[in-house]
């Protein structure tokens, strides 16, 4: 019999990285020889046996596709269980599912990555892709906002991006914090301060709903058209394949028709 799509494959946790006080990353390797060839923006369903499954963006894929990484913010039932998992533990994986960022269509353009908190996770594969094909793209600008310095993710990457002359990185925290000498202010304000011009750029925005909403408003104020602004949407998802019903925005399913959309593809109330 053909395989039941909703039954996950076993995968082993190869590495656990404590990213911040409530975010851990897990490097996963499928038990079988199948490789996960996730395109930037795709997601997987990850299971803890006995506790169910949840949706996570693939935040990094190894070059040979033999392993991939998810970042998990401790939020609910399943993420609490995942946070207890250690190296060598087994989890279940389905996917990758969903569409992806149109990185091929973006060739030759300047790219602005705008991430808020854990919202940087689904955007990191775009940065990885650009750095692997650096000559195909123009300028790369990254705006990353965290609530406090303790919520900053991917510190190793931020260090690398900071030192890369082809990248302009702006890291900001929401409110002043003792010992923090960097930029302070929420992401939409930073976007306005930087007066980002649309020119030949595309912007990719992901973060908490309120951050996306106001960042989009800031970009529109700076005369960005909706077809140049991309986001990856989040909704309650279960099946990941457009059948369980719950992640719809109008007739579209975020899991199947998305999660990546340019703003001209979705109604305003989706933000």
């Amino acid at each position, binding site marked *: 019999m053909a395989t039941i799509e909703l039954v996950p494959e076993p995968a082993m946790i190869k590495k656990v990285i404590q990213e911040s006080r409530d975010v851990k990353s897990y490097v996963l390797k499928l038990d079988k020889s199948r490789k996960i060839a996730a395109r930037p923006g795709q997601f997987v369903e990850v299971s803890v046996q006995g506790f*169910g*499954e949840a949706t996570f963006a693939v935040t990094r894929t190894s070059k040979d596709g033999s392993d991939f990484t998810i970042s998990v913010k401790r939020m609910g039932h399943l993420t609490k269980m995942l946070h207890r998992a250690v190296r060598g533990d087994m989890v279940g994986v389905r996917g990758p599912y969903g569409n992806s960022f149109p990185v091929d269509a973006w060739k030759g353009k300047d790219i602005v990555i705008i991430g808020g908190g854990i919202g940087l996770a689904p955007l990191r594969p775009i940065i990885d892709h650009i750095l692997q094909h650096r000559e195909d793209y123009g300028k790369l600008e990254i705006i990353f906002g965290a609530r406090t310095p303790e919520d900053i993710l991917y510190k190793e990457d931020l260090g690398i991006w900071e030192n890369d002359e082809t990248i302009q990185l702006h890291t900001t925290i929401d409110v002043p914090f003792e010992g923090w000498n960097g930029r302070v202010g929420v992401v939409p304000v930073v976007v306005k301060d930087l007066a980002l011009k649309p020119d030949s750029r595309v912007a990719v925005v992901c973060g908490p709903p309120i951050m996306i909403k106001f960042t989009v408003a800031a970009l529109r104020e700076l005369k960005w058209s909706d077809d140049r602004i991309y986001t990856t949407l989040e909704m*309650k998802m279960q099946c990941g394949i457009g*059948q*369980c019903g719950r992640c*719809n925005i*109008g*007739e579209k399913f975020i899991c199947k028709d998305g999660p990546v959309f340019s703003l001209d593809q979705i109604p305003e109330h989706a933000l």
Partner: protein
Amino acid sequence: MSKWHKLKRTDLKDFLSRLAEKWEVWVPYRVDGKWEFGIYAPDREMDFPESVIHVSMKNLFFPKRRPIAKYEEDSKWSMQPVAADDKPRIVMGLHPCDVAGIEYMDKVFLNSEHKDVLYESERKRTVLVGMLCSEMADNCHCTDRGLTPDSASGMDVAFAKVDDYYLFKGMTDRGKEIMQSEYLKAVGDAPEKRKWPAGKYAIASPEEFMDMYDDKIWHELSDICLTCGICTYACPTCVCFLVTDEKFKGKGERVTVWDSCQLQSYSRMAGGHNTRKTPASRVRNRTLDKFAYSHLRYGQISCTGCGRCVMVCPLKRSFPQLGARLSERIRDKKKSKAGTGARSKED
């Protein structure tokens, strides 16, 4: 072209008993005044109701609780997929609206690169022996949804009740084997085609429904709805489900369970964010999903006019009435070309 064959009413039990030697035969039974399907047993009183069976077909193809994998609780990972059931089955006595419901489920579960193989095996093992309706019950409104109560479309075998006998006709290759029964030798005349009246629940077009997204009517409609979700469980095309793990005495199962978009928990995410917090947003989602989104997705609205939602609604105001009330509002709106309500922030 195949002919209609007669089955004497007095031969019905023998006919079914013979079929039951090879097939698992499902027929309608009356339980506490309501019709539902059960496995044929010769000593149990059964009959074929003239029109809609209270409990829909959905459970026979997509059970309300469906194990998809099993595991041992004390292991980190031992999940094994379940085996599909492939015992040949006959479902006899379903109606044209039930066939339409099954065809809609096919669109959800089979027209996909990730098709549901458990659903597919339920479909493959089942021969649909459908009964042409001889009347429309109080809440029937399939004629408002483009269906015909005595249409044999989509059935493997069609049959009709006439006087003291039944008329059977094979519609597909799968149905032929049933037609070879020794009890179906006598040829009869085709059952008379009737002219059917419209139902009580005519609706607007999908496009007109889409235009109502921002209307304040959703608040009015949600005021007369409990958002209890019973209509979604009764509905033959509502197939939203939840995937969850259940444990009992060391044995675990991963199951799909019917879920309902009318319940607050349906869209609530970890951390509490909910895109459809209010009853109005949930009533809007279901109404538009039935009459517009489904059409945009699959080219078929997801209402078959079976009327089960009316039968089960605790307030008896239920879903098609909301749809009809909304359609009325659409007509009024078109006439006056005015009157949109406040824009809602929710989807």
